[in-house]
């Protein structure tokens, strides 16, 4: 009799401990899911805040004015709210940056993937990674105090703040990014394509430029596109070196403000919460987010494509 009771208790205990384990497992899984969902919450927060504040902005300023007015002077006594000058500043610095990063990044990627021995790669790759570890404010310092004086030594009429020096430095900054994504794409090209080219008597350079490069083109384009998105969002270099006057110009030798620089400029001042000036930075931020989003999505689509090809 007592043995039976003991057996039953033991069974019950075992059951309850299994039950407890199950509850614990479930609880932990829910906690982990919660952690994963915070990233979604952040996105919702970003979009929510930007859209909400921009909504307040666009209730007072029409979309037509926003996209067609050629002046951006929200803090002047006679305010104009045309985003074009900020967009032109962003486009010019990004174009200069690409003019640096595309050729340099591609060359580095080709030499790392097709020419370099594994020893050289082991040294260069961490070196490139370190480049991206340098804080952007330090790059801003370089742009203002080294690159601009160097440009002035060549063309004395270059002003102290200009988009060219900011763009050049941003270009240097995104080289590691462009080169590492392109290199991955080129290494994904199967070896038999290279061997085929060599068998037909192609030299190493012909193989690299005419076989590997075209085969990896969608991946390499992805690298460029993601690089563009980086350059658009870069803030400190332009805020320090490009000057902060918004003006509609396509000449890289002139000072101008980008969207990011404008946000910094306003944040440095002390605008009252809820004023139209305060709302302008959110409208600008929304435009910026949408521009980078387009490039990011395009880049990821291209990246997926080269993965599927082989």
């Amino acid at each position, binding site marked *: 009799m007592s043995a039976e009771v003991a057996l039953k208790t033991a069974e019950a205990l075992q059951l309850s401990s299994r039950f407890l384990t199950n509850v*614990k*497992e479930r609880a*932990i*899984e829910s*906690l*982990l*899911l919660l*952690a*994963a*969902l*915070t*990233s*979604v919450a*952040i996105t919702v*927060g*970003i979009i929510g*805040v*930007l859209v*909400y*504040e921009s909504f307040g902005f666009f209730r007072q300023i029409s979309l037509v004015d926003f996209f067609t007015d050629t002046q951006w002077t929200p803090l002047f006594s006679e305010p104009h709210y045309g985003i074009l000058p900020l967009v032109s500043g962003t486009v010019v610095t990004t174009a200069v940056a690409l003019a640096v990063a595309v050729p*340099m990044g591609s060359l580095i990627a080709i*030499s790392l993937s097709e020419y370099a021995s594994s020893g050289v790669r082991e040294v*260069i790759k*961490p070196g490139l*990674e*370190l*480049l991206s*570890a*340098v*804080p*952007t*404010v*330090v790059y*801003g*310092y*370089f742009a203002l*105090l*080294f690159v601009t004086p160097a440009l002035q030594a060549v063309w004395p009429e270059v002003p102290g703040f200009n988009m060219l020096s900011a763009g050049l430095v941003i270009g*240097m900054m995104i080289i590691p990014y462009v080169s590492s994504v392109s290199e991955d794409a080129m290494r994904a090209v199967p070896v038999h394509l290279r061997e085929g080219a060599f068998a037909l008597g192609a030299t190493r350079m012909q193989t690299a430029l005419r076989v590997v490069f075209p085969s990896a083109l969608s991946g390499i384009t992805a690298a460029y596109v993601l690089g563009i*998105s980086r350059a*658009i*969002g*870069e*803030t*400190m270099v332009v805020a*320090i070196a490009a000057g902060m006057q918004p003006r509609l110009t396509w000449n890289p030798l002139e000072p101008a403000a980008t969207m*990011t620089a404008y*946000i*910094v400029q306003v*944040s440095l001042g002390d605008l009252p919460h809820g004023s139209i000036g305060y709302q302008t*930075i*959110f409208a600008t*931020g929304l435009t*910026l*987010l949408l521009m*980078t*989003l387009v490039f*990011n*999505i395009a880049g*990821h689509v291209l990246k997926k494509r080269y993965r599927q090809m082989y």
Partner: protein
Amino acid sequence: MAMACFVLLALLLQLIYDGMGRVSWQFLTSYPSRFPSQAGILSAWIGTVLVMFLTALTAVPLGIGAAIYLEEYAAKNWMTDVIEINITNLAGVPSIVYGLMALGLLVYEFHLGQSFLTAGLTLAMLILPMVIIATREALRAVPPQIREASYALGATKWQTVRDHVVPYSMGGILTGMILALSRAVGETAPLITVGALSFIAFLPHPPVTAEFPFVSIQWLFDPFTVMPIQMFNWVSRPQEEFHINAAAAGVVLILMTLAMNALAIAVRGRFRRRIHW
């Protein structure tokens, strides 16, 4: 390629040359000042340390938890897809946009003010995608046989993750954490938007007090500044002497990030040697 490295090296050397003379005990232990020769980075580097502490405290557990969920638990359904696409896209959002979000949400909606707490949370949100991506890669490197062996011995899912998968991928996880934090150390733009002050001539309330309960959270709500903000402030001034201070702050800042990167490489090497599958 050599040219790019050479240009950068030249720039770095120039920075060190300009700034090194200014880096001294006095520089590290003085507050910012109107007089360039008396100015220092005391409040800035203490601010950086405190903000990094908060950032790590928030981003590391959240990031590792999210990565474990996605790698070990998540079923293949639409919710997982949404989370994954979302993380990829978050990683590409410009940092200043995080600053705008924090300004609207943390500063004004949650009334956290322009404080250490806001700064730490802002940077934590910024590096969260990086932490998640790095941790997932580390977890993926653990071969599935390890998990199967653990299940075969009757371990539950969580026991397997806690006692096997996470410890074995610790090297990769730690490396990712350190690299993400070193990114956060140099971030400037989002902290400007949430209202970093560039002239702070006092220290925050001490986190440790003499009376019971010995820890104080008063400092969380103090105004903050960090190294890159201080450097930005000095670069933007017209006077030459302040530019030298900026170079010196830059040297200290680069030393900080390089030290973290070196630590990451060392950690990676150490764990790589110890584990043989």
